[in-house]
């Protein structure tokens, strides 16, 4: 590259666009693979989807008719193509329990999970980043040890058990927060019948409606599960922040800034943070994706009507289309978040473009 004139802004942007295109191609292949795996899982199910529709006493002719209607008489590769075509159009099949479209059902359950995971990530970031910075600036100190041990504990605790203990202490004993569910029954009725639903996320909807009593009740319900998920993501975020920050503080530009007499807070929060922020975006996106998954067990504990509850309920009803539909949705969210953070990374950090 020596001897070339400095690239114009356009030339600098072009490789990024190329990489984004490449990234989208990879995304498409990954999503296709995801669908292939769920398709294979659906094919090895021991329960025959036809029998669960027509019942045990159907005549062979009826069974054949249903098979044809469901496309089960086609060769496997054709079935897979149809499955992919439907999925791309947003059709994940019909739930065996309710006979309704899985996509429509998931759309109803998803906002509750999104609300929980978002709040959890916000908690985790607000606590985890300063904790990690604190630990990195005083390595080996008591503060560092505390952050490390608290983080390791977060890695080691079964989230469902922590949820039960949280309920036992903060709801059962201290009565500081509301119990399981998203709202008390009274407010739930209000939410359903008198208020307009914009997003399905109760905190947002209640605020938009100006129904502050509903909002307060929702806060009292969400604080415990969101705090719990926040702790789990805090464990991860604080650990990574510490490691990134320590790496950065050993660089020469930090020494230069200190020698210049720059106040320490400015060295850390402005100069070092600028470089730490880039990989941290990826970490936060990953922990967000992880919380979407972590919600499966948390939602069971807190009777939270989200995607996790939807999947586990479907599991026990042997409702495979619903289980796999939920799996696909979480997988897609996972992959998309990863890819988005990757692209953001490249846009923000010029070094990653090479």
């Amino acid at each position: 590259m020596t001897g070339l004139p400095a690239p114009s802004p356009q030339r600098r942007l072009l490789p990024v666009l190329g990489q984004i295109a490449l990234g989208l191609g990879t995304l498409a292949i990954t999503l296709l693979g995801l669908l292939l795996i769920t398709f294979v899982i659906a094919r090895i199910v021991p329960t025959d989807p036809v029998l669960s529709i027509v019942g045990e006493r159907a005549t062979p002719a009826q069974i054949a008719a249903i098979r044809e209607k469901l496309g089960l008489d086609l060769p496997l590769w054709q079935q897979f193509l149809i499955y992919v075509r439907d999925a791309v159009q947003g059709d994940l099949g019909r739930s065996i329990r309710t006979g309704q479209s899985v996509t429509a059902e998931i759309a109803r359950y998803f906002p509750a999970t999104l609300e929980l995971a978002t709040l959890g990530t916000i908690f985790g970031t607000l606590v985890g980043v300063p904790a990690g910075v604190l630990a990195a600036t005083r390595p080996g100190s008591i503060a560092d040890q505390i952050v490390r041990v608290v983080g390791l504990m977060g890695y080691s605790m079964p989230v469902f058990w922590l949820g039960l203990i949280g309920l036992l202490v903060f709801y059962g004993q201290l009565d500081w927060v509301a119990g399981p569910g998203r709202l008390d029954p009274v407010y739930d009725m209000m939410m359903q019948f008198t208020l307009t639903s914009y997003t399905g996320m109760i905190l947002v909807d209640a605020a938009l409606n100006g129904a502050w009593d509903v909002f307060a009740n929702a806060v009292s319900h969400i604080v415990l599960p969101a705090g719990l998920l926040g702790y789990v993501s805090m464990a991860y975020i604080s650990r990574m922040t510490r490691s990134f920050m320590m790496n950065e503080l050993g660089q020469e530009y930090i020494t230069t800034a200190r020698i210049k007499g720059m106040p320490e807070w400015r060295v850390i929060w402005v100069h070092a943070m600028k470089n730490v922020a880039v990989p941290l975006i990826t970490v936060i996106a990953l922990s967000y994706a992880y919380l979407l998954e972590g919600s499966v067990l948390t939602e069971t504990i807190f009777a939270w009507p989200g995607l996790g509850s939807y999947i586990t309920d479907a599991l026990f009803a042997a409702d495979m289309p619903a289980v796999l539909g939920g799996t696909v949705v979480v997988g897609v969210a996972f992959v998309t978040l990863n890819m988005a953070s990757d692209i953001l990374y490249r846009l923000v950090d010029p070094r990653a473009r090479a």
Partner: protein
Amino acid sequence: MTALRAWLSDPNPASRRQARLGQAWLAWQRIRRNRLAMAGLVIVGLLLLVAAFAPLIAPHDPLTQDLSRRLLPPGTPGNLLGTDDFGRDILSRIIFGARITLYIIALVAVTAPVLGLLIGTVAGYFGGWVDATLMRLTDIFLAFPRLILALALVAVLGPGIENAVLAIALTAWPPYARVARAETLTVRSSDYIAAIRLQGASSPRIIAGHVVPMCLPSVIIRVTLDMAGVILIAAGLGFLGLGVLPPTPEWGLMISSGRKFLFEQWWVATMPGLAIFIVSLGFNLLGDGLRDVLDPRSASR
């Protein structure tokens, strides 16, 4: 003893065995100084002992029911951690549960890393389209959230301990493949590999005999760190009723059965969770320490 120590720390080892043992001795010295890692080692060691000698340690049979002694609080004479809703001794059930936990993690630890090593080294060694295909496959499995994929697999395979292990192993191999591939890429072009190849060694032989050993340290660290996650996922499956079947004293299942009377008899759900927490913390501490000691890249931090 001092002669042995001098032999181990000899800077000019006379034999290959002495050099290897000396290396191990030095690593052990470094681990011993790391207090948290030692705590982890003690916990993992205790788990092994408890699982091995469960029938000797446990004060009661884990399955015998005694309905006249149900839901006794911790500290009751004869039932140190109390009893559950069938009057079974919780401590004994936790002790026998250590066997189930160990069984699950041992099975996962011998399957997932082997699969990951195979895929990772083959991909890294051959490169080109083999690498591209295998790594794409790895990425697809990595893209799946682990617990949810395990749930879907168990839903298809049916509940049971072997199926839970299979589901966990199928979701656990991709990170090993990544690590193994990265290590393979760094050794692939080294002179000693070229020398063996010139001697006419076949690719499987080179991979198995000369590439895999180079990947082992990083894989072992990952296994240790990963075991904590495996314990949590196994407990989660058990909690949801997708792991082992009821009378078996599995920790996750015990929490789920204690959930019904959480507010009245808190100990039934709390005690097994404490066991899960301690064991998984032990593996995390040990893995963390091992990484500091064996991985020179992170040791500098």
